[in-house]
């Protein structure tokens, strides 16, 4: 009944030396859904998504995106394929303004003398950024000042606007509400809903269970590098999820015991 997944991760393993950060993980994400990825600190969530977004190269297993097996050699490789990521360690240059960040690495240029002389088309980039922000119902005090003058939530909005502008086929957000005040957290959740309405699938990493229950359709829990469960939001609750996060419950172990 379901459409084929946008992203399919199979038997994915990533080690750092002897440390197995991601251990044989399977995960699917379908069009238009928000999938929450949960787990204690060090469970391997960030490492898993960094394999998908081209920061790390996985040791074994496969990643299939939009029906094609992929192995990205760099983050820009992944972004060019339509996987936009908001990293936990924020991936914006705080000394640059909004448009410079939205277009960083993919600047629009004006060419003169047959391309011999080029200059940045700042006007175009500013207009497009303003439009992307407007479509997300985000208002910023200024598009021209460096984004270090913006609040944490506003910066997340800029990162999301970047993904929207570049027409992301998959959005990955690593703890996007971390270090934000409550109103700002709410705003980010609204933005995630907006993304879903537009049909952009989202992988949301979060520690915050109320957030997850508010916006996600499904969740997967990791523990010590392994995926220990995967459930529809409607079929679980916070208490149960916590049990999985601390390792008290483990679907893979139960099947082992059953079998």
């Amino acid at each position: 009944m379901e459409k084929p997944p946008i992203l399919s991760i199979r038997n994915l393993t990533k080690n750092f030396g002897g440390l197995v950060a991601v251990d044989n993980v399977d995960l699917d994400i379908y069009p238009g859904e928000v999938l929450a990825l949960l787990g204690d600190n060090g469970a391997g969530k960030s490492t898993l998504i960094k394999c998908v977004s081209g920061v790390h190269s996985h040791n074994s297993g496969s990643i299939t995106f939009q029906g094609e097996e992929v192995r990205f050699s760099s983050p820009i490789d992944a972004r060019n394929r339509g996987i936009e990521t908001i990293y936990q360690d924020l991936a914006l240059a705080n000394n640059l303004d909004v448009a410079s960040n939205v277009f960083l690495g993919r600047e629009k240029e004006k060419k003169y003398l047959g391309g011999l002389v080029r200059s940045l088309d700042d006007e175009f980039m500013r207009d497009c950024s303003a439009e992307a922000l407007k479509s997300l119902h985000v208002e910023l005090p200024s598009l021209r000042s460096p984004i270090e003058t913006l609040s944490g939530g506003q910066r997340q909005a800029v990162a999301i606007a970047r993904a929207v502008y570049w027409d992301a086929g998959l959005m990955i957000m690593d703890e996007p509400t971390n270090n934000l005040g409550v109103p700002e957290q709410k705003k980010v959740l609204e933005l995630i809903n907006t993304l879903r309405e537009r049909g952009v699938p989202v992988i949301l990493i979060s520690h915050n269970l109320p957030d997850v229950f508010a916006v996600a359709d499904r969740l997967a829990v990791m523990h010590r590098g392994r995926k220990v469960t995967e459930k529809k939001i409607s079929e679980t609750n916070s208490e149960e999820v916590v049990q999985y996060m601390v390792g008290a419950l483990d679907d893979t172990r139960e099947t082992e015991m059953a079998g």
Partner: protein
Amino acid sequence: MGSSDKSASKGSGKSASQVLILSLMQVWAWVFLACLVLIFIVAVPIISGSSVSFLSVRNSQNILVAITPVLLLGLGQTFVIISGGIDLSVGWVMSFASVISALALRAAYDSGLPLWIAVLAGLITAIIGCGAIGLFNGVIIAKLKVPPFIVTLGTSFIVRGMALLMSENTTVIGLPSGVRDYGNESLMYYIRGEGGGMYFFTKPEVTVDLLRKMDRIITYPVLMTALVVAIAIYVLRRTKFGRYTYAIGGNQVAATRAGVPVESHIIKLYVLASVTAGIAGFLSMLRFTAGSAVIGDPLLLSSIAAVIIGGVSLFGGSGSIVGTVIGALIIAVLTTGLVMLNVPSFWQFIVVGAVVILAVLIDQTRDIIKAKIGTG
């Protein structure tokens, strides 16, 4: 929703006086430079007791000639420091350029080539030779991840040795006398007093008496420096190259993940710093009609001082070429002015040093005030 009304409350937190102080601190270097010039205009005739004017054609041109090497060294340095690096080798690279361009020029001329081709050969030799040094710096910094401070410190010793070796530990002389014109003649000439006037493009044929009253306005090295400055301003503000330089200085990881070719860009930055130093060496060779292996080193610290006074943060991510120009002007105006006031030369160093520290203090205070207003 939440974002817009929060910023409104932020705005109202700024009082008029705070805004005034902030904007003053933003442009303090301009104000400081203007004040210095004013002070010297008033003080020089009074204290020296003559009718010498600080802003005379001759003196202003002397200042311009004096800042060209500092400025050229500072230009490349501005790019490098904005990217979060530093290049300590540019002083000796300039010396090296002075020596090798003199050798190339002399060899080309002696082999029977016309003078202008020999001069061009000198320039190309300086650019290629120094570009290679910059490439060496850049590759080790970007690929092998050795801190720029250490790499360029090492390089500066290596280049120093090379410069002394190539010059055989002495000044490279025996250049064709026409070289002097390239290094010292100018776009315009001005002769004071009776029988004088303005002359354009060609040196006027006048009596020895009038010649003594003649000033050269915009000498060729000044012109070439101005050209390089204009290009640098454009590149830093208006091009991808400039944008990447700021991005790398602001957040290297973010730049990498956004797809900025960080490693190759860093390599280009060190090549740029070396090449501008090379041009400085070439121009000083023209000016003195000789290659000198010791010409550049004393200018290294002045050039870094100019960059810092101009507001470039040593932590990277901010600064401008115009700032560096102002910084270089402040240093030149200070030193020239103090000389004209007959202040002993050691005071120049003390004052310049104080201004450097003052500049950083002002920038820091400004950032603190900004942050306070921002979150308050």
